[in-house]
């Protein structure tokens, strides 16, 4: 497995964990009747910050981990260069494009829910949910493009 695929896997797992945490908390709030704006905004802030921190930490740890494994495999203290070539950039861009489309559709769905009479808080919850879902779909799309070649 290439470093890019490992990096995408880390991003995928961290986003899945964050989405799980978000959904569990949202369901618990709903059951306890605590679905009030202050609590939902606090949860959204936690989810957004956790998403940023986990992605950065994940990328740094992946780079360190891969460098250590490569150094052990090659039995050399020479610095391991991690290359991101034109194919990686192209696949990254395609993944981002898929992610944007998924997020746009999610925002549209959230707005439709609002138009059909759901409260604004539900629309907000749906937007956060679809932003996480879009990231997952983007990562899965990148996996697909890597398996296809580009």
């Amino acid at each position, binding site marked *: 497995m*290439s470093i*890019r695929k490992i990096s995408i896997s880390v991003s995928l797992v961290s986003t899945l964990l964050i989405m799980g945490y978000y959904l569990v908390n949202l369901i618990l709030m709903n059951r306890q009747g605590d679905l009030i704006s202050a609590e939902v905004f606090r949860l959204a802030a936690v989810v957004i910050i956790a998403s940023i921190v986990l992605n950065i930490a994940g990328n740094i740890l992946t780079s360190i981990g891969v460098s250590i494994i490569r150094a052990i495999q090659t039995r050399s203290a020479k610095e391991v260069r991690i290359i991101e*070539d*034109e*194919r990686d950039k192209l696949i990254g861009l395609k993944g981002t494009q898929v992610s944007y489309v998924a997020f746009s559709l999610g925002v549209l769905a959230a707005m439709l829910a609002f138009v059909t009479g759901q409260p604004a808080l539900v629309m907000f919850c749906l937007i956060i949910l679809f932003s996480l879902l879009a990231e997952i779909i983007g990562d899965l799309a990148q996996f697909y493009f890597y398996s*296809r*070649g*580009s």
Partner: protein
Amino acid sequence: MEKHRVRNTIRKLRFQHDEMTQEQLAEKVGVTRQTIIAIEGGKYAPSLELAFKIALVFDVSIGEVFSYEMEDE
């Protein structure tokens, strides 16, 4: 419309050049081994710059490495 695809002779050229490995070629042109595998397998069409770099490594013209042919049915 007829379907075309980029074909290449990288595998043959590598063996003609002291059985150069994919890793060595990748290092020379500044890409990952996975990209060389994808190009060799015809799954990825490289940029013009990368195609020139590959041709330069083998010291042949770009036409001797890459060709644009009709896809087999």
